């Protein structure tokens, strides 16, 4: 198969040039002129590449203008295409007509960086709410992070459905349960949902801007709090991007422990989700049972590593906690106990007809939709896409521990639950393998000093799916830009699409089966 980079080079000829400022070298990067940006995307789309992310950076500290980046993925390959945008003409060609997933990335670029995607059919702001001043573009270097945001009058233009018997249900941002804030607007007729529109951005905390005021080491704390339920995977992905940028080589033991934390986080969250899915169809028995197992795992985390969610245990250069022989034994025993407790619960889930009646065929995201939206993680794997960074883009020890990836094609709430069921089993196996093979070299090494104007990229499979970080060093080696792409940034689009034809009372179930992050999306 021809590599993605070669495809673009063949198509664009001398217009495209290779960019060697991006690390690691396994991720290729090309610079193309602005007018050919969409051509490159068209070529890649034709050859089945998926869009992983699109973002912008302010490169004025280097004496340049702005830059727009699009990251594409196909199997093991990542390709970043960069195009430069002059300050005087802050526009770039939209990729939305090639890739539906670009739709919100571009609205976000326009809202926060003030670059207009020409050809994007939707010019409404995203994350930026309607009461922000129109010219407040926080990611620009000219914008002071301390600015007090003024409120101006404004109204969000919702998509409307009109006619006899059609009504609208607004939900949120303050929801009925203990969950994060977001707004959902249903157009419904009777109980049938005609359309669902999401409005997010309520928990926008200015994280990407905040990164720029921290040192590389300090910022690891922030990365660990992008989405509190995914603290391990986010701090890991950030750390790996920084290590790529600085060319830091880690001791093996640190890598193994990182993988251990990552799999423990996956099991704990999947257990919580399975319980919550059952709770939303009023099957509270499994809710309490799965949460009982989760609580024990969190307590073991606290006991062995000092934090229930393992926050701040991964830093650029390695890890800050170790495990001794007793700890290994404790985890091994816990895994045996977990299996004994977990499997009977799965049998109960599987054999309960009333539960099956609710979760089967609810909220179907068809494989072609998942592909069009470039979904990732559990959502993608429940809809027929075989994607997992642990296989496609492995770091040690995943390059020598095989990972079996469960893929289902029904795309319903059951499939999303069952992918989690299988992944818990797989993670138990992986942890055993990790503990059996953990090397005994060091835990942490100092990271090198970043050179100016370099960038680093990392992809890590968190429990929700692929987490991308792209970091760029400034003229003095400081953080110039840190792009965060949580799986939620793309998967929220899937929830809107899967709800058509379902009834309003099934929405909580569909939403829970996705369980996307608000904080990771809003940043």
């Amino acid at each position, binding site marked *: 198969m021809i590599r993605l980079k070669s495809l673009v080079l063949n198509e664009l000829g001398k217009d495209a040039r290779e960019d060697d400022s991006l690390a690691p070298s396994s991720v290729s990067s090309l610079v193309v002129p602005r007018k050919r940006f969409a051509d490159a995307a068209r070529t890649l789309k034709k050859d089945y590449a998926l869009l992983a992310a699109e973002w912008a950076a302010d490169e004025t500290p280097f004496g340049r203008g702005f830059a727009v980046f699009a990251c594409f993925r196909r199997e093991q390959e990542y390709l970043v295409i960069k195009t430069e945008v002059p300050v005087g003409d802050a526009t770039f060609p939209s990729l939305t007509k090639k890739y539906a997933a670009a739709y919100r990335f571009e609205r976000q670029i326009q809202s926060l960086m003030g670059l207009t995607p020409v050809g994007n059919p939707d010019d409404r702001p995203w994350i930026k709410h309607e009461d922000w001043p129109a010219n407040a573009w926080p990611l620009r270097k000219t914008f*002071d992070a*301390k600015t007090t945001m003024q409120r101006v009058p404004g109204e969000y233009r919702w998509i409307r459905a009109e006619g006899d018997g059609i009504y609208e249900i607004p939900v949120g941002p303050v929801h009925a349960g203990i969950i994060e804030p977001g707004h959902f607007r249903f157009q419904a007729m009777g109980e049938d949902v005609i359309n669902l529109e999401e409005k997010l951005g*309520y*928990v926008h905390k200015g994280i990407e801007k905040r990164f720029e005021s921290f040192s590389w080491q300090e910022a690891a704390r*922030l990365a660990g709090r992008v989405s509190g339920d995914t603290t391990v995977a986010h701090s890991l992905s950030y750390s790996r991007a920084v290590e790529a940028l600085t060319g830091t080589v880690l001791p093996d033991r640190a890598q193994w422990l990182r993988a251990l934390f990552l799999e423990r986080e996956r099991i704990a969250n999947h257990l919580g989700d399975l319980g919550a899915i059952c709770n939303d169809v009023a099957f509270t028995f499994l809710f309490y049972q799965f949460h009982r197992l989760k609580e024990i795992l969190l307590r073991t985390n*606290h006991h062995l590593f000092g934090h229930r969610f393992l926050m701040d245990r991964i830093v650029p250069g390695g890890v800050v906690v170790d495990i001794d022989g007793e700890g290994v034994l404790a985890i091994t025993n816990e895994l045996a106990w977990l299996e004994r407790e977990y499997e009977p619960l799965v049998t109960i889930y599987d054999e309960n007809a009333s539960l099956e009646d609710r979760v089967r065929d609810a909220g179907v995201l068809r494989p072609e939709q998942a592909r069009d939206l470039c979904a990732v993680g559990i959502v993608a794997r429940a809809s027929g896409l075989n994607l997992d960074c642990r296989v496609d883009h492995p770091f040690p020890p995943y390059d020598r521990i095989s990972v079996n990836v469960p893929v289902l094609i029904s795309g319903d709430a059951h499939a999303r639950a069952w992918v989690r069921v299988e992944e818990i089993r797989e993670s138990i196996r992986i942890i055993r393998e990790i503990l059996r093979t953990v090397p005994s070299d060091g835990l942490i090494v100092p990271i090198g000093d970043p050179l100016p104007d370099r960038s680093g990229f990392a992809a890590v499979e968190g429990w929700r799916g692929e987490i991308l970080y792209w970091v760029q060093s400034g003229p003095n080696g400081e953080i110039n830009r840190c792009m965060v792409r949580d799986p939620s940034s793309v998967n929220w689009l899937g929830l809107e699409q899967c709800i058509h034809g379902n009834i309003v009372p099934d929405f909580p179930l569909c939403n829970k089966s996705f369980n996307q992050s608000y904080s990771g999306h809003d940043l």
Partner: protein
Amino acid sequence: MIRILKHIFRTGIVTEPLPPITDPEIGKIGVQLEEAIRSRFQRSLAIRQVDAGSCNGCELEIHAINNAFYNCERFGIHFTASPRFADLLLVTGPVSHNMEIALKRTYAATPPPKIVVAVGDCGCNGGVFGESYASLGGVGKVIPVDAVIPGCPPTPTTLLQGILKAIDGKF
């Protein structure tokens, strides 16, 4: 059905301070809480949780006080779906600019005594997110706060302690 019943009996009651894992703190706090709730709230404390910008870490631990180990309902604590019948607002932060209005409206919709407890380091002072164009800082910057529960995130035990402190100080 037999299988479910069997599993229920086999699991037994895990609510602490009973085994399998004993954490003496939880039981102790529970007794105090129960007394306070009995005397002040007629055995029922209704909590409305508001995420005003948190990273979701605090929410996980607030969920946990509902699980079988901490079982907050045995003390008369339950979470309501609306602020209209809440005695206490449990607010996680930092308060984002985009949540400021919703938080103020939720506060306005809550009947007296309107106890407000700010949860987490971010709810106390903005935490790692600090104060910026998008983050207003701690909950106290936006609505009056009666008690704070620091921690990143606070453990379920700390949460129960913090709630006790809040209803003790109010009357």
